[in-house]
C-alpha cells in the first residue's frame, strides 16, 4: 500500500497524497509511515471515502456550527463581530493508556499548584525555604496582596484549569502552559463532540469513545462543593463581562448547561458584605460566583478603578467569606510563565513526587547566563511575555524578521523579568481536511481540570489546530481551528478491516 518515491520518501495513496512525513511526531502515522493501531479504522475509512462525501460532511458540520450560533467574537471588527471557529472534521484520537498518564499528571500538577497558592498567600514556607525566590513571586503581575491570609472554602484556589499540553517529537506529552485564571474553550470541546456525533455517527460508534457530555454537571458539582459552608441551597451564578467579550458564547452556553443565571456586573450589588442579584422578584442573595472576568476588573474599589464590568465591594464580601469565587482571586501567580519554570520543583516540594508530565525547557531571562544564551539565539527560540495569554506578546524565532527580533531584544534587555524563552517546539501533527485533501497540521491539547472536593477531568479536551501550513500558533485569535478529541475506552486492539 505504501510505495516509496525516488527520494525515498513514502508516498501515500489519495486522499493522503499531500501528506509528507516530517520530523515532528505524527498522531496518525508511525515513523515508517504506517497508520498507528488506534488510527487504522479512521485511515481506512478515509481511503474508501469518495472526495465529495468528505466535502459534504465538512460542509454539513460548518452549517451546524453556523446555525447553532457557535461563534466567537473578533475584537476590532464592527459589523458581524461573530465568526464561527474553523472546525476540522477529523478526530484527534488518544488511547486509553496515554490518557491515563495525562490524567495522573494533571491531577498531580493541579494539586501541587493549589498547595503552592495556599502557601504563598498564607505561610510562605516555600519562600522561606528558598525553593522559589521571594522576589520572583512578589513581582508577578497577577500576585494579589489583598489575598494574604484570606481563608477560602476547602483551600481550593483553582476550581477550573485548562492546561495546554503538547506532544514532543519522542511522543511524550509535556505541559506548555497552565491556565489558572479564566481558561476558556470548553464549550467548543462540547460543541465539537455534538457535531461529530451527528456527522460521523457510524465511525464514532465503532470506536468506543469515552463520553464528555457530563462536563456541565461536573462543573456544577465542583462549584457547589466550593460554596461557603452553612448555606443549604447555594445560589450559583456565572459572571460574564457581557456580549462584547470574545467568549460570551461560551458563558451563555455553560450557564445554560448548568441551569444557572448568567449575570453581568451591573446585575449584582453588595450590601453589608453580602452579594445580591437584582431580579424581577427582588434581590436574591448569591453564594457562589463562577466568574469569567479577570481579577483586574472584578471590583473597581479594589482593582482597576475605571472598570465597569465588576461589582463594587465584591472583594470585601469575598474576604468576609459571604461569597465564594471560582477561581479564587490571585491564581494568576501560578501560571506566570516564570513561575512555570519552577513547577517541577513545586511538585517535588509539596508532594515529594516525581513530576509525571514534564515541562518544556524554559530559560529564565533574569538569570544572566541564560539571558546571554537566549539573546545570542533569538532566531531559534520562542520568546513569551510572562503575563500574557492567547498567543499575544510572543516571538517565534525561526519565523520572525530581523526587525521583530530587535524589538524583542530591546524589550528583554529593558525588562528581563517580563519574558521567558523556550526552544521552538515541533508540535505533533494530526491529519486535517484542507481543500478536500488530507494534510498534516500542528496540534496541541487543552484538557479541562475541575477541582472541587476532588479532581475531575472529563476524558477529552480541546484540540487546537494551526490551520496555516507550517504554522505553530493554535490560538483562535491567531488563525487556529479545533477538532474533536477522542479518548478511547481501554487498551487498543487491532481493528478488523
Amino acid at each position: 500500500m505504501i510505495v516509496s518515491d525516488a527520494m525515498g520518501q513514502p508516498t501515500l495513496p489519495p486522499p493522503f497524497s499531500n501528506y509528507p512525513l516530517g520530523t515532528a511526531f505524527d498522531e496518525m502515522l508511525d515513523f515508517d509511515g504506517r497508520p498507528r493501531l488506534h488510527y487504522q479504522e479512521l485511515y481506512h475509512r478515509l481511503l474508501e471515502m469518495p472526495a465529495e462525501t468528505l466535502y459534504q460532511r465538512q460542509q454539513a458540520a460548518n452549517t451546524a456550527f453556523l446555525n447553532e450560533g457557535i461563534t466567537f467574537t473578533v475584537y476590532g471588527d464592527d459589523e458581524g463581530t461573530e465568526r464561527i471557529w474553523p472546525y476540522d472534521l477529523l478526530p484527534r484520537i488518544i488511547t486509553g493508556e496515554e490518557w491515563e498518564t495525562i490524567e495522573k499528571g494533571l491531577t498531580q500538577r493541579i494539586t501541587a499548584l493549589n498547595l503552592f497558592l495556599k502557601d504563598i498567600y498564607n505561610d510562605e514556607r516555600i519562600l522561606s525555604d528558598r525553593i522559589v525566590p521571594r522576589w520572583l513571586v512578589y513581582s508577578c503581575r497577577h500576585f494579589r496582596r489583598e489575598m494574604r491570609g484570606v481563608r477560602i472554602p476547602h483551600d481550593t484556589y483553582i476550581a477550573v484549569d485548562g492546561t495546554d499540553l503538547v506532544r514532543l517529537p519522542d511522543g511524550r506529552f509535556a505541559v506548555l502552559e497552565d491556565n489558572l485564571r479564566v481558561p476558556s474553550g470548553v464549550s467548543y470541546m462540547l460543541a465539537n463532540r455534538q457535531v461529530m456525533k451527528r456527522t460521523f455517527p457510524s465511525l464514532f460508534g465503532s470506536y468506543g469513545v469515552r463520553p464528555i457530555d457530563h462536563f456541565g454537571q461536573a462543573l456544577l458539582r465542583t462549584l457547589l462543593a466550593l460554596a461557603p459552608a452553612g448555606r443549604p441551597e447555594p445560589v450559583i451564578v456565572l459572571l460574564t463581562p457581557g456580549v462584547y467579550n470574545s467568549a460570551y458564547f461560551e458563558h451563555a452556553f455553560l450557564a445554560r448547561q448548568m441551569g444557572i443565571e448568567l449575570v453581568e456586573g451591573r446585575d449584582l450589588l453588595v450590601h453589608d458584605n453580602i452579594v445580591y442579584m437584582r431580579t424581577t422578584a427582588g434581590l436574591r442573595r448569591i453564594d457562589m460566583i463562577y466568574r469569567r472576568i479577570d481579577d483586574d476588573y472584578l471590583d473597581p474599589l479594589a482593582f482597576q478603578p475605571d472598570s465597569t464590568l465588576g461589582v463594587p465591594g465584591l472583594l470585601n464580601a469575598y474576604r468576609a467569606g459571604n461569597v465564594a469565587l471560582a477561581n479564587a482571586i490571585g491564581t494568576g501567580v501560578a501560571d506566570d510563565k516564570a513561575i512555570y519554570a519552577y513547577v517541577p520543583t513545586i511538585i517535588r516540594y509539596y508532594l515529594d513526587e516525581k513530576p509525571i508530565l514534564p515541562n518544556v525547557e524554559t530559560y529564565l531571562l533574569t538569570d544572566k547566563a541564560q539571558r546571554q544564551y537566549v539573546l545570542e539565539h533569538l532566531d531559534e527560540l520562542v520568546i513569551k511575555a510572562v503575563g500574557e495569554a492567547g498567543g499575544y506578546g510572543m516571538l517565534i524565532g525561526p519565523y520572525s524578521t530581523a526587525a521583530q527580533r530587535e524589538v524583542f531584544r530591546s524589550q528583554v534587555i529593558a525588562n528581563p523579568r517580563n519574558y521567558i524563552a523556550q526552544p521552538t517546539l515541533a508540535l505533533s501533527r494530526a491529519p486535517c481536511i484542507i481543500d478536500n485533501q488530507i494534510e498534516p497540521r500542528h496540534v496541541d491539547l487543552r484538557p479541562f481540570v475541575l477541582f472541587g472536593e476532588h479532581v475531575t477531568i472529563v476524558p477529552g479536551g480541546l484540540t487546537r489546530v494551526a490551520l496555516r501550513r507550517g504554522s505553530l500558533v493554535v490560538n483562535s485569535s491567531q488563525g487556529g481551528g479545533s477538532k474533536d478529541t477522542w479518548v478511547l475506552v481501554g487498551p487498543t486492539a487491532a481493528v478488523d478491516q
Partner: protein
Amino acid sequence: MLSRVADSLYWMSRYLEQAEHTARLIDVQLNQMLDQAGGDTSLRWQRLLHSLRTPPPEGDVDAYSVTQALTFDESRTSSIASCIASARENARQVREQISSEMWEQLNRLFLQVKGTSMEQMWFAEPHKFLNSMKEEIYLFQGITDATMSHSEGWHFIRVGRFLERATATAALLDAHFSALLTEQTEDESEPLDYLSWIGLLRSCASFEAYCKVYTAVIRPAHIAEFLLLNAEAPRSIRFACAMMQGALQAIAKAISARNSGRVERLIGRLRASLDYYQIEEILSGDMHEYLESIQRQCALIHSGLYQAYIAYPIEVALTSRGAAQA
C-alpha cells in the same frame, strides 16, 4: 428573572411595535397622497409628525423629507432604522433568553434595513419596503409566540408591545381629532374630510374591522368609539389595555410579587375607565384631555413597572424581601 433581562425584553418589544406603527403610518400617508393631489400635503405630514410626537425634519416638510427622516435617519431615535437597531441591541444583550428563531428573524430584519438606502426604497416602491417592514415585525411576533416559552419574559414582551400600542394609538387619535373635529359640524352627513378619516382607520389597520361593525358609513363618533372602546379589535386602546393587564397580572403571579399593587391599580383603573365609559361622555367632555390622560396613565404604568420589578430602590428590597430570601 434578572431585572436587566426583563428590561431588555420589554424595550425590544416596545421598539418593534413603534417601528411597525411608524411604517404603517407612512405607508398609509403615501398612499393617500395619490388621491389628494390638490390639498395641502405639508399640513398632513405635519399632523403625522405630531401624532408620532417627533419634531419635523429640517428644511421643507414634504413626503420625501419626512419619509427619509422617519425611516432611515439614524440620528432620530424614533426612525424605523433606529427602532429596529435598538430592538436588536436589546435582543443581543439577552440572546440566550430568547429563541434562536427570534434572534435570527430580528437580525435578518436589521440587516434588511441596513442594506437599503433611501434612494433605493423611494425609486423602487416605498410601499413594498414599508409593507415588508410591517410583515417582518408581524412575523417576529408570531415567532415569539410560537417558539418562546410563555413565562415571565414573554409577558414582559407583551407588556412592552401593548403599552406602546395604547400610547401610540392615543397620540394618533388626539392628533386627528384635534385637527379634524374642530372643522366638523356634527350632523348626519358625510364628514368633510372623508379620506382623512379612512386614513386614520387604515393607520390603525382597522378599516375593514370598522366596516364590519358600523358598515362603511364613516362617522367620527363611531371611529372614536371603535379605536378607543372596542373590546375585540386588536388595535383599540381598550383591547391593548386588557392585554397589558393580563400580562401584568401574569408577571405578578409568576413571581408572587408583593409590591405589584401600584402597577396593578394603575392598569386596573385605566382598564375600568375604558370598560365603562360611553363614547358620548368622552366626546361631550374634553376629548383631547381624555386622550392625554390615557398617555399619562400609560407613562405611570411604565414607571410603576420599573419600580416594582426593574429599578426598585435597594433599601426597600432589602427590608421587604431581601431579608426573606437571605
